[in-house]
């Protein structure tokens, strides 16, 4: 993947600084000082800049020196954007106190959020064109499916660590690359005639997708946010089985390829397991060991659901389908 197209002053200044560091042909110090003082043009600009910096920790860019992942100037800029972003998330998604037992309370919290469902729209009325658009936007996460959560593993004590690996092992195909969930999505994309190379559609996605992706990276990359990362995972898994069935039915209704349907069919079954593991064995085990993480788990769960709801509303509005 190459660096995405800039969406404003900040992402443009960041791109210029990364290029200066990579090629050594322009003054890198001047480029960084411009990046530090650049005002984000809008949310899309700010979140694309953050997304770009995070991406250095996943697969990087063909046109950027990979050493920049840990460059102090880049980390300083990343940190300043992260601080603002985390403040916003905590304002938007402040969690209630959860009752006992924790597993039931977390399921109840998740079920109590009444978000807009794109899967229901795809199931019943989306056109092929709208569905293909949604699939393109889903590539941003599904092609790195489970990766942000993998960062949490070494930060956990024995019980929650083993529990998380039990789930992740299934996401990663139990050692069989053909069954890796992100690879199942690649097969679906190929069959549907969409691009399956990593990050191919990042220039097209609405800001809401970047925000969703950035929240996962923020939670995954900071040990301090391990509770939020696992709460996010729990909410994601617990709102996947039935929506995946609806997606599969919608894809079938539209005559889209069996390979793409298979990705969603796999998630009907897998996530009926994963939601139980995520809530009852992973998050419950974490909270048992670290009771102070309960509120963080709830915060992460509400963030996951709230950001998906924003994306869904945006898409339905754009499709005139509210």
């Amino acid at each position, binding site marked *: 993947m190459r660096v995405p197209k800039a969406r404003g002053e900040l992402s443009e200044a960041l791109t210029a600084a990364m290029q200066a560091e990579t090629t050594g042909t322009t003054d890198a110090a001047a480029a960084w000082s411009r990046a530090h003082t650049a005002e984000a043009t809008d949310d899309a600009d700010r979140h694309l800049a953050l997304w770009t910096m995070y991406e250095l920790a996943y697969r990087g860019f063909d046109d950027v020196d990979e050493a920049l992942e840990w460059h102090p100037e880049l980390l300083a800029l990343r940190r300043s954007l992260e601080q603002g972003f985390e403040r916003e998330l905590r304002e938007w998604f402040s969690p209630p106190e959860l009752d006992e037992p924790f597993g039931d309370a977390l399921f109840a919290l998740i079920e109590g959020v009444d978000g807009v469902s794109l899967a229901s729209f795809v199931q019943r009325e989306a056109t092929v064109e709208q569905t293909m658009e949604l699939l393109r936007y889903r590539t941003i996460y599904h092609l790195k499916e489970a990766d942000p959560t993998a960062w949490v593993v070494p930060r956990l004590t024995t019980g929650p660590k083993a529990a998380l690996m039990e789930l992740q092992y299934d996401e990663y195909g139990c050692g069989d690359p053909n069954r890796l969930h992100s690879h199942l999505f690649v097969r679906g994309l190929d069959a549907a005639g969409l691009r399956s190379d990593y990050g191919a559609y990042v220039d097209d996605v609405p800001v809401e997708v970047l925000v969703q992706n950035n929240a996962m990276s923020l939670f995954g990359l900071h040990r301090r946010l391990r509770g939020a990362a696992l709460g996010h995972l729990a909410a994601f898994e617990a709102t996947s*089985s039935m929506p995946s069935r609806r997606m599969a039915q919608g894809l079938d209704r539209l005559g889209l390829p069996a390979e793409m349907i298979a990705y969603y069919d796999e998630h009907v079954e897998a996530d009926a397991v994963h939601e139980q593991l995520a809530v009852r064995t992973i998050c419950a085990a974490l909270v048992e060991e670290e009771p102070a993480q309960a509120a963080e788990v709830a915060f992460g769960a509400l963030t996951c659901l709230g950001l998906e709801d924003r994306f869904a509303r945006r898409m339905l509005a754009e499709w005139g389908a509210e």
Partner: protein
Amino acid sequence: MTAERFDHPDVVICPGGPLLLRGEHLVADADGRMHRTTRPVSAVCRCGKSADQPWCDGTHKVLPDKQKP
């Protein structure tokens, strides 16, 4: 210091939800058809309403409390 022993059951009954099976099993559904597990942990439907028998598909969550297993 002694190492803690963790509970790690082979079969877990989830309140109001499926039964989790760890490891490889051959499961006979209500019609006697055989299904081999394919993942490290499998969820067997206990509510009878899953469309993907014998596996849970999350349907139990939309059942009224009285019908939940």
